[in-house]
């Protein structure tokens, strides 16, 4: 009897071990690898016909819910805008409903990777271009050449999601870049350079106004200054980190000085804190992205001004924020009727009418070429300021190696802003961390 039970137990354990090995097994199964290329071929064949059909009725009549994960937030107006477009689509196609979920940018990336690992991806992503890097490497999204007529979008926006010769996202807005937004009641004229910025800070502090705020927790807000000091996070090959440089040390020194020596920025400030201080009129200027303009227009109205981030007086260079846009990414596993509907919805969001609506409500530069000629764009002063900032921006790197740079810069930036490291040590530590990180990508 005991022997039989022992045999049964051993058999059960063996089955579990085999199952565990299969779960993370070695041989790629054709069935699992098939969806992405299959979907691509299928949609490529259908593409010409669909371009002609443009924005006609939804292709599928079956009841379905499309889950969209987006980085668009409530406070910026992006989430309500996307929801209103989804509602309009549902009004035209009652069989399709949407579940739109807001996630912070980095949380969206992490959650999508985890969800994809568990085979439980959302149906559509609406996010930033640099997510395309890790998602394509992990084969989590599918190329979009067959899913949209990419020729109708601004070339620079499309180029922002081009990796390995393929396009991985459909652009909805162009830019997504940082700029200087200021309260005209507190700062009639924006500072042209960092010397002016520092000079006007004394007056503002005398009035108990914080001169400048920005999200101090993310290196995305530091990188423009790095450009201003003449540095870049990558060598010319676009994948080798160059973080331990005199330019980076100068940038970190500048970040340290505006906090501790000049006291231009608050002791602590994350995204929401900065946003609130600016909206409440407690901060005169904020460095934030084009996604935030809609929210500030609602709060400040005509008092809102947009300008370039002040020129770095020490070098004479303009800070160079990263430019890209916002994009719809299609998960690799999306196929069939849901893929057709998601594709149709993306076409709906980026049609001329809705692109102009986005300009009017959110003050973002459209990705659709024809929308650029609309008076809503050409006669919009805020967009002029945003476009002027874009001129000195640089394209956001989407290579996977950029993740190593972001992750390596963050703790060191925090160390500088908590005055626990010297700029030189922090720059060296960034480089070491990025080099170590590259090894883990192999």
């Amino acid at each position, binding site marked *: 009897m005991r022997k039989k039970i022992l045999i049964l137990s051993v058999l059960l354990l063996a089955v579990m071990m085999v199952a565990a090995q299969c779960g993370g*097994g*070695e041989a790629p199964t054709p069935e699992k690898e098939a969806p992405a290329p299959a979907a691509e071929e299928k949609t490529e064949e259908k593409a010409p016909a669909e371009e002609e059909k443009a924005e006609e009725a939804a292709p599928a009549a079956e009841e379905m819910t499309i889950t969209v994960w987006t980085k668009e937030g409530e406070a910026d107006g992006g989430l309500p805008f996307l929801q209103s477009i989804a509602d309009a689509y549902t009004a035209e196609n009652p069989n399709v409903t949407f579940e739109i979920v807001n996630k912070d940018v980095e949380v969206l990336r*992490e959650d999508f990777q985890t969800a994809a690992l568990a085979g439980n991806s959302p149906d559509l992503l609406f996010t930033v271009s640099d997510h395309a890097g890790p998602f394509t*490497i*992990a084969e989590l999204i599918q190329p979009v050449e067959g899913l949209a007529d990419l020729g109708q979008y601004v070339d620079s926006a499309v180029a922002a999601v081009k990796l390995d010769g393929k396009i991985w996202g459909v652009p909805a807005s162009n830019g997504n870049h940082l700029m200087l937004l200021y309260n005209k009641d507190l700062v009639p004229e924006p500072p042209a350079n960092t010397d002016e910025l520092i000079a006007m800070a004394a007056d503002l502090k005398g009035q108990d106004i914080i001169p400048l705020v920005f999200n101090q927790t993310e290196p995305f807000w530091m990188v423009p200054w790095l450009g201003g000091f003449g540095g870049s996070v990558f060598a010319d090959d676009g994948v080798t980190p160059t973080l331990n440089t005199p330019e980076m040390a100068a940038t970190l020194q500048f970040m340290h000085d505006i906090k501790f020596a000049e006291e231009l920025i608050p002791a602590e400030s994350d995204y929401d804190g900065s946003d*609130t201080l600016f909206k409440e009129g407690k901060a005169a200027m904020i460095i934030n992205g084009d996604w935030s303009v809609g929210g500030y227009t609602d709060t400040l109205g005509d008092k809102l001004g947009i300008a370039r981030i002040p020129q770095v007086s020490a070098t004479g260079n303009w800070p160079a924020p990263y430019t890209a846009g916002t994009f719809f990414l299609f998960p690799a596993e999306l196929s069939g009727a849901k893929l057709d509907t998601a594709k149709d919805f993306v076409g709906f969001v980026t049609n001329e009418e809705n692109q102009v609506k986005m300009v009017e409500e959110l003050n973002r530069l459209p990705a659709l070429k024809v929308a650029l000629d609309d008076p809503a764009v050409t006669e919009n002063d805020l967009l002029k300021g945003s476009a002027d900032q874009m001129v000195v921006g640089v394209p956001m790197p989407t290579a996977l190696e950029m993740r190593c740079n972001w992750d390596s810069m963050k703790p060191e930036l925090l160390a500088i802003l908590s005055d*626990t490291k010297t700029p030189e040590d922090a720059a060296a530590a960034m480089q070491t961390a990025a080099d170590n990180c590259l090894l883990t990508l*192999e």
Partner: protein
Amino acid sequence: MDSLTLDVIVRSISEVGGTVAFIVVGSIILELVLFLIFKVILKSPHTLPIMLLGPAAFGMIVLIIYPLLWELNLSFTNMSLRRFGDKAQYTWIACQAKPENINFWLTDCLFKNYADVFRLPVLKQVYFFPVFFRTVLWTFINMVFHLVGGMIFAILLNQPIRGRGIYRTFLILPWAIPQVIAVLAWRGEFHFEYGFVNLILVRLGLEQINWMTDPFWNFTAMCIVNIWLGIPFMMVILLGGLQSISSDYYEAAEIDGASGLQQFTNITIPLLRPVMTPAIVLGTIWTFNNFNVPFFINQFELETSDILVTALFRAAFQYNRYGFSAAFAFIIFIILLLYSIFYIWISDGLKEVYE
């Protein structure tokens, strides 16, 4: 938003109905299989208990044993973003060259991830041992305050004082609030500009504190929140233990002339030990593994505030070091297992449970 109509209720039930039906049908099939094997084939006299335990055992295998084995397997692999998920492109780490000695075999082949936990930074800058010792410090500080605070409140509430029920309710309140909600609320209160902690400090004429960027104060904020959260649990456990101690012991001690301190050390503590031991073991493991408080209070992601489990989360889900993280998780598991065995052995805390 949909109102709660019959249609909505039916739709909601139908969404979970499939899962419930699957569990019910699965359980029935499992019971039949067990009956066939143990009653019909093996003719075992223990068929009934086996059938009663069967579904729970199966659940444990599927939900605990299988993930553990999967993770153990993962810890030997090179899974990363380039070799990701069900694409099944990751493999066990193979030796690049012929292993020259056992040491090389241990550190650069199959067990490379385990060796990497100790020889590479577990995050971007910090190595394993600083994070480990910080975790021990975090656990020690919290457990001391939980135990002392819980004991003080338990003794107070064990006295015949007026309004005892109301005090008890208020003191248990932190435990009743979902932890993430409580932690996020606390994080708001540590905000430099708008948090009440700094506002009070300013009113008192003191300097504001950089709770989010200063490593020391951020760690302190984590401890404050976790102590606030953890005292009610210890208080409830100890109060239960105190109420089970017969007053006869204390009366006898008083007749013998024992002081309050002597009664506490010679009656209360020994008689509380069967209750305290599992509470301390559990509390230590929970604190050691507490994710919500260190992760959410450390909003700026200071590496100086990470403890082992938050570092593990970041390694796995922010930095995508999957094989490494699986090995890291096993090392944490082994540390806690050894601690639990050691503590139970040294304290003889479960002796009375066995007897």
